[in-house]
Structures are given as structure tokens and as C-alpha cells.
């Protein structure tokens, strides 16, 4: 309310300073005046300028890079892990103060896929862990029991498992996995093909479109546009539709990031 009061009071002040009398007069009166007074007729019609039909030109919103600072104290020799559950509580990201998989990422969708990867094997030994995504120095875990959103207990178990795997010193990620990751060009080509032939034709019915922004290692970054931007079902589309299609078409794809700003844009979701 404070903001609204100031906004309207601010408008009144501005008006009263720039055009103290003419603003409150109806347009019709000013037009009559302009036809009867020679002095006014020779000047630009202030009222017509003020009430021009032309809408203000919308400005483009630029997104400068966010300067991130380390969440860990510098030069700590201990293994430090921070847990950050998602807003919806369906997954939790664990950030470690050391690199777990350099320059790449890997998605483990079941216990069998974790063979020879000590980190994933440790995590799948926990009862409630459903999937594991390792990306650089983070591990993102989803749980089997979707009714629980409090991660406190499971997060401590996951933290202990990650710490144990690191201290063990064996391969966190299996060598066969790292050697199987294809080049960025191969991944880009495969993902672009599935976007063009499967994903975009599917979301086009809702006025949406998916763009491939970047491929780094085997990590893919996309942007949702058109009707997908700002849509309340965008998260569902991303996780159940796009992720599934991408991993089916290119099984070596690791993390999939969505860089869409769902609060911005000139045409978010059918507006």
C-alpha cells in the first residue's frame, strides 16, 4: 500500500509541476479554445500530444550476468557439502567444495546404471534415492517417495554417502562412462534433430517452441519461448516431456538446463 500511495501521489506531483491548469481541462474545451484564440492555435496542441494514440515503445529487458560468490570458505581442506532442496521439494541439489566430474555431467536413472561409479553406487544404496545427476561439483537427487518434501533426514544420509565415496578414493564416475561421452557436435546434432522433429511439433499446438542455446561437454542448455514462456506447466513439460525425449534420442546427455526467464518477455504465455 505504501508503494501504491507513493506511486499515485508521485503522479499528482509530477502533473502539477509540468502542466498546472491545462491537464484538468477536458479535451473538448481545449479544442474550442484553440479555434477561438489565435495565440493558442499557432502553438502545438499540448492536449493532443499528451493523449496521443501511440503507445509507449516497450523497452527491451537486458539480463546482465549474475556475479556469484563461493558458498564455501576459501582453501578449506575438509569435504564441505551444502544441500539445497528445490522449491517444489521433488529434488535436492548437493554442492561439494570439489569437482566430482570435470567438464561433463551424467544422469543415473537406476542402480544398474551406477555400476563401477562409486559415487552413484553409494547413493543408490540409500532406500529413498530414485535418480542421481552428477554435474561438475554438484549432485542432484530425486527421491522415490514423492509425498515427502522435508529433505533434512535424507539429505544428511546423501551427504554422508557423497563424503564416504570421495574419501574412499576410487572412481567416482566409471571410466567406461567418461569414455563413452561423444563430442559436443554429435550431441548438438542429435538434440537439434529431436527438437525439430519431436519436441517443437509437440509444443507448437500450445504456441510454444524450444531453442537449443548451448552444448558444453554433454550438458545441454535450452530456452523455452512463445507459449511455453511463463506457462505454469513449463516445468512439467521440461521434466516429463523434453528430458525424456532428449535422453531417449541421445542417451549420453547429462544435465539439461532451462535458461528461460518465465517472468519476462514481450509475449509470455498467450498474453
Amino acid at each position, binding site marked *: 500500500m505504501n508503494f501504491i500511495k507513493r506511486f499515485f501521489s508521485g503522479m499528482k506531483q509530477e502533473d502539477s509541476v509540468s502542466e498546472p491548469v491545462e491537464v484538468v481541462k477536458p479535451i473538448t474545451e481545449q479544442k474550442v479554445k484553440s479555434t477561438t484564440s489565435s495565440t493558442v492555435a499557432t502553438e502545438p496542441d499540448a492536449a493532443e500530444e499528451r493523449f496521443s494514440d501511440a503507445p509507449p515503445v516497450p523497452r527491451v529487458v537486458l539480463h546482465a550476468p*549474475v556475479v556469484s560468490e563461493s558458498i564455501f570458505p576459501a582453501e578449506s581442506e575438509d569435504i564441505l557439502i551444502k544441500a539445497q532442496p528445490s522449491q517444489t521439494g521433488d529434488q535436492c541439489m548437493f554442492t561439494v567444495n570439489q569437482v566430482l566430474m570435470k567438464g561433463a555431467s551424467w544422469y543415473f536413472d537406476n542402480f544398474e546404471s551406477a555400476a563401477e561409479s562409486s559415487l552413484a553406487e553409494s547413493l543408490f544404496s540409500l532406500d529413498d534415492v530414485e535418480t542421481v545427476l552428477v554435474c561438475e561439483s554438484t549432485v542432484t537427487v530425486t527421491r522415490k517417495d514423492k509425498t515427502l518434501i522435508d529433505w533434512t533426514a535424507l539429505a544428511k544420509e546423501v551427504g554422508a554417502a557423497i563424503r564416504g565415496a570421495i574419501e574412499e578414493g576410487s572412481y567416482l564416475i566409471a571410466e567406461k562412462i567418461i569414455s563413452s561421452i561423444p563430442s559436443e557436435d554429435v550431441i548438438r546434432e542429435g538434440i537439434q534433430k529431436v527438437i525439430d522433429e519431436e519436441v517443437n511439433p509437440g509444443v507448437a499446438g500450445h504456441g510454444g517452441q524450444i531453442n537449443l542455446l548451448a552444448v558444453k561437454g554433454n550438458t545441454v542448455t535450452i530456452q523455452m519461448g512463445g507459449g511455453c514462456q511463463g506457462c505454469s506447466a513449463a516445468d512439467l513439460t521440461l521434466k516429463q516431456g523434453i528430458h525424456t525425449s532428449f535422453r531417449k534420442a541421445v542417451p549420453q546427455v547429462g544435465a539439461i538446463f532451462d535458461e528461460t526467464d518465465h517472468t519476462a518477455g514481450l509475449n509470455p504465455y498467450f498474453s
Partner: protein
Amino acid sequence: MPRVLKFKVNIETGKQGPNETVNFCFNNHKMPFENVIGSNESDAIFEGSFDVNSFAHSLTLVGPEKGKWDVEKVTVDYECEGEEPYVVKWGAVTLDETTEMNLWQDPPAPMFDV
């Protein structure tokens, strides 16, 4: 979407600054900053704040009416209802009469040591 009680900005201008009133847009309402210290002329530092007390959909820094504005760095301190105060820092961007810069970021998700 939290209720923003107050936010404070610190803007470092680079080589080119318009030296004009600095405005922001909160939920598409254009307003000047309050408690202003400094300016946005070249190589200067501008500080301003505003007691918003309203829910945030968008918050932007409005580009100059004329010329270009080399923004080197922006630091925003947010105070939101029911949230710990938090700070977000943005890097360089150049604004002009057709652009504005996003200054909104949701409060960070809670994080804890394990």
C-alpha cells in the same frame, strides 16, 4: 513471489554515464529512487533505495532517456517479508533509451550443511 519491503541499489558507472535521474520500474511502474547518494555520471557511484512494501513481479533499472549508460556493476540488497535479507550482484551491461536491466531475483532457496 515475495512481498518486497525495501530494496537498496549500488550502481557503479563505467566510462559513459548520462548523469540524469535514475529511475526503476517496479511491476511496470516507473519511479525515481529515494535516499539518493552520488550520481550515474562517468566513473561515479550511485546509491538509492525505496520502501516498496508490495509483491514483486518485476524490477528493472530504466535506461537513460538519451545516450548510453555503461553500467559496470550493480549490487542490490533486498528485504522481503518472511525471508532473510539477501544480496545479488550483477555484472556489466550497457543501457540506452530502448533498454532496461533486470534487477529482480527471487530469494535463494534455503541451503544447509550436510
